[in-house]
């Protein structure tokens, strides 16, 4: 009971002070028929010592992430996480605060969020960014919704290179108001401008969602695809780019390529994998769409003495004011994760972001070359890629991954068959700046051994 504010004795005193005879008087409003007669069917309370024992025991029944070298990607990446981040987000002032509705006592959260909005604009080359979303997938869904509302069109196109998981979340979100989603065909793993051009014929399109880098790690020809969408103007479909922010030190800003909105997941920026969540999403767009932007927005403000501060703004877009007419129903988002990303970007700076991008290019290139030296391993897609690539194995990938893990303690990659039929021998391999030459060589050797 160490988290409670008072003991049973104190409770008795408080009841007396209230002029209440017994606790039951306070819950007279709960019909006796609805009250539980006995305790909940749960195991008895554990002390901290017992809790640690239990959770360490559960952790032991998983692979050990500290000693198992991982080449897993597909949306969650093993990027370096600066030590300072945890020390800062473990400060009570950041993690035990809530929504900054009372701005005067929330300047820490609000200023950091203003920094976040700034950095997202800088990375994406767009005008405005909100305070964040739950994750990249829901951010993509909301950007498509915005496009529909802004254009008064229904039709939405998704490149095949958008990861199936994201596509499924988008479908779940957009089905709410009768979604109309079309998946565009892929050609050698990418969206060809000609395929987009053909798809644009017919009913006008609200938006096209393209992931960069895409689900295979490939670089989509965003410049040519953007050109295919036509000249800027109200008739042009929204180009919505789902961009991994860690690539934006070396890859062109979506805004510079004609994107109307950019969204993505922030996990690469100083966020541990956590078995897939919580992460956070970002959403940046052009100034014209500001009033349709979901989620929180922080603006610079002044107090009566002229001191600079920050405050939530344009709250009339949000659920607590607009209710059923709100731009979204989002309330709690993922602020602490956004703070992690902000601190990460502050620590690495522009040169660090460029460097980590270059390292991902170099290490993935080296890894691909080494893996192609393993007999029977072939490359699936030609052309430029970032941090990830797909190889084809002589045997089913899931089986090979299991053998490599067992024999060598390495997680070789994600079998594409997890999300796509007919791809049983294909393996998605991610190589971040954390993967040393030695580790990559060990992967190649392990693969050789497993295939022998």
């Amino acid at each position: 009971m160490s988290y409670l504010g008072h003991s049973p004795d104190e409770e008795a005193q408080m009841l007396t002070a209230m002029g209440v005879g017994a606790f039951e008087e306070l819950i007279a409003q709960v019909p006796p028929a609805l009250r539980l007669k006995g305790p909940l069917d749960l195991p008895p309370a554990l002390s901290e010592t017992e809790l640690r024992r239990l959770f360490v025991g559960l952790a032991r029944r998983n692979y050990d992430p500290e000693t198992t070298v991982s080449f897993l990607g597909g949306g969650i990446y093993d990027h370096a996480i600066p030590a300072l981040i945890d020390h800062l987000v473990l400060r009570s002032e950041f993690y035990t605060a809530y929504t900054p509705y009372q701005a005067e006592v929330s300047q820490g959260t609000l200023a950091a969020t203003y920094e976040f909005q700034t950095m997202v604009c800088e990375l994406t080359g767009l005008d405005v960014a909100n305070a964040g979303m739950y994750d990249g997938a829901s951010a993509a869904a909301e950007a498509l919704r915005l496009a529909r509302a802004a254009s008064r069109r229904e039709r939405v196109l998704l490149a095949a290179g958008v990861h199936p998981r994201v596509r499924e979340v988008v479908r779940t979100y957009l089905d709410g108001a009768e979604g109309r989603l079309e998946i565009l065909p892929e050609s050698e793993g990418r969206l060809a401008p000609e395929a987009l051009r053909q798809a644009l014929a017919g009913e006008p399109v609200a938006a096209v969602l393209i992931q960069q880098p895409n689900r295979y790690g490939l670089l989509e020809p965003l410049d040519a695809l953007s050109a295919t969408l036509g000249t800027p103007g109200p008739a042009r479909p929204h180009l919505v780019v789902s961009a991994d922010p860690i690539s934006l030190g070396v890859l062109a800003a979506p805004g510079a390529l004609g994107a109307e909105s950019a969204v993505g997941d922030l996990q690469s920026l100083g966020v541990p994998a956590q078995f897939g969540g919580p992460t956070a999403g970002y959403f940046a767009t052009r100034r014209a769409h500001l009033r349709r932007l979901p989620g929180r927005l922080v603006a610079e403000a002044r107090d009566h003495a002229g001191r600079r501060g920050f405050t939530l703004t344009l709250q009339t877009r949000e659920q607590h004011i607009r209710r059923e007419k709100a731009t979204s129903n989002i309330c709690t988002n993922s602020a602490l994760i956004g703070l992690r990303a902000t601190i990460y970007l502050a620590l690495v700076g522009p040169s660090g972001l460029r460097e980590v991008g270059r390292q991902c290019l170099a290490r993935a290139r080296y890894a691909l070359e080494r893996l192609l030296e393993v007999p029977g391993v072939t490359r699936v897609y030609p052309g430029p890629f970032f941090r990830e690539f797909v190889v084809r194995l002589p045997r089913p990938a899931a089986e090979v991954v299991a053998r490599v893990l067992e024999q060598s303690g390495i997680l070789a990659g994600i079998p594409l068959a997890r999300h796509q039929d007919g791809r049983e021998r294909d393996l998605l391999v991610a190589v971040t700046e954390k993967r040393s030459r030695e580790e990559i060589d060990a992967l190649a050797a392990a693969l050789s051994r497993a295939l022998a």
Partner: protein
Amino acid sequence: MDGLLPELCATPAGSVDLIFDASLPGHRGYRFPALDLPEASIEGEIPAGLRRERAPHLPEVTEPEAARHYIALSRLNHHVDRSLYPLGSCTMKYNPKVNEDLARIPGLGLLHPEAPETAVQGMLELLWHAGEALRAIVGMDAISLHPSAGAQGEMLGMQLVRGYHRRRGRTKAKVLIPDSAHGTNPASIARAGFTPVQVASRADGRIDLAALEDLIGPDTAAIMITNPSTLGLFEGEIREISERIHAVDGLVYMDGANLNALVGLARPGDMGVDIVHLNLHKTFSTPHGGGGPGAGPVAVRAPLAELLPVPQIERDGERYRIVSDRPHSVGRLHSYYGNAGVMVRAYAYIRSLGPEGLRAVSRAAIVNANYLMRKVEGAFPVAKREACMHEFVSTCVWTRQHEVRNIDVAKRLLDYGFHAPTVSFPLIVPDALMIEPTESETRRSLDGFAAALHAIAAEVRERPEDVRGAPHCTPVGRLDEAEAARRLSLRWTPPGRRGA
């Protein structure tokens, strides 16, 4: 500053600096490992049209500079570990520190969600047990851990309602909500393509059954209720309400934001509820984080189980499986399995309390709220004068004659070292202050808060200008929100660049 307690202005007055203000060319705060293999040239790897031309303008700071900056920012925040944070329906209870340690155990916190199933059995076991524990607490048949927040849970809930009716060949357009509903409720209803229809409250703030009956019809898909209501009062006729909704083949959705009043005391499953979402960052102590991350698991009765999102985690003897083959599922809501990191913390909390501890939580929350209500009502009358559950709503109507509004009272509380309650919600109470102390507060803390409110009430009468001009002791004074909304500076701009 007459009348202020001596320690009131101990808050560090600070300027609010941005990291960009600390930036110096050439500084950097993090080093990557040296490249131990051949360089890749950007020109060789990336086609010209896709290459970054202009580097993003990010700050250049050393690690100690970053540390000082963010620590300085942190000191400008009020937080639960400083003092009472009585936001209504937010349940700002203590966040146990051991849960942060447990979530950071590498074998839990660093796991990749797409590792082979056999390599993550411990995590699957944890998530399964967490789901089962939450299910037991609410008394429902099945659960999804996917939603990332309560609002996303509500959205899922509405999609479940739609899917349920579709499966039975029905289209029903309307979802009923009380006029005291939280804003996410109608927003979520509209998102799912339904029309929200408001049901009036009685004088005691509870749903008016007669008004409800008038509105119920064959096109009623569901009702979305909060119990206890946002006035902190238990809907005693919840079973009767459920019966009437079920009689027209509608579903009962319960917004579980106020579950802190019910844990171990009563279960939504016994109230005729068909779908309920929980807020783990409220009832189950996971940190609020300045605005998330949270989690909003959704629990359902058996007939809705087939509709739950994919994938689900199932137990098969000693093994745990990830199951995606669910033909009637509404689809995928989370990229992976839900916010597992939040689940670890919530499960640790549940296991640390056990059944007696959970029962004690709701009991202490109810005692604290009633105790505080009786101490406060002399200063600010309570909207409904009866015992409350875990929260209550006071009104500031009387301050208007002194040209002071509820927001001014809230701002003055900041000077006394407390966070303000929720202001101007629920909408059915004029000039509301919605106060939820939670079970974490001691009597002393509650007495201090009540004393502050009484002092402010006196100030309203004697020196209203001090209240109107509040806060005086915070790092910044009251900010001009109207000017901020006109100017709309939503990002910092480097000097020399044309502003956005």
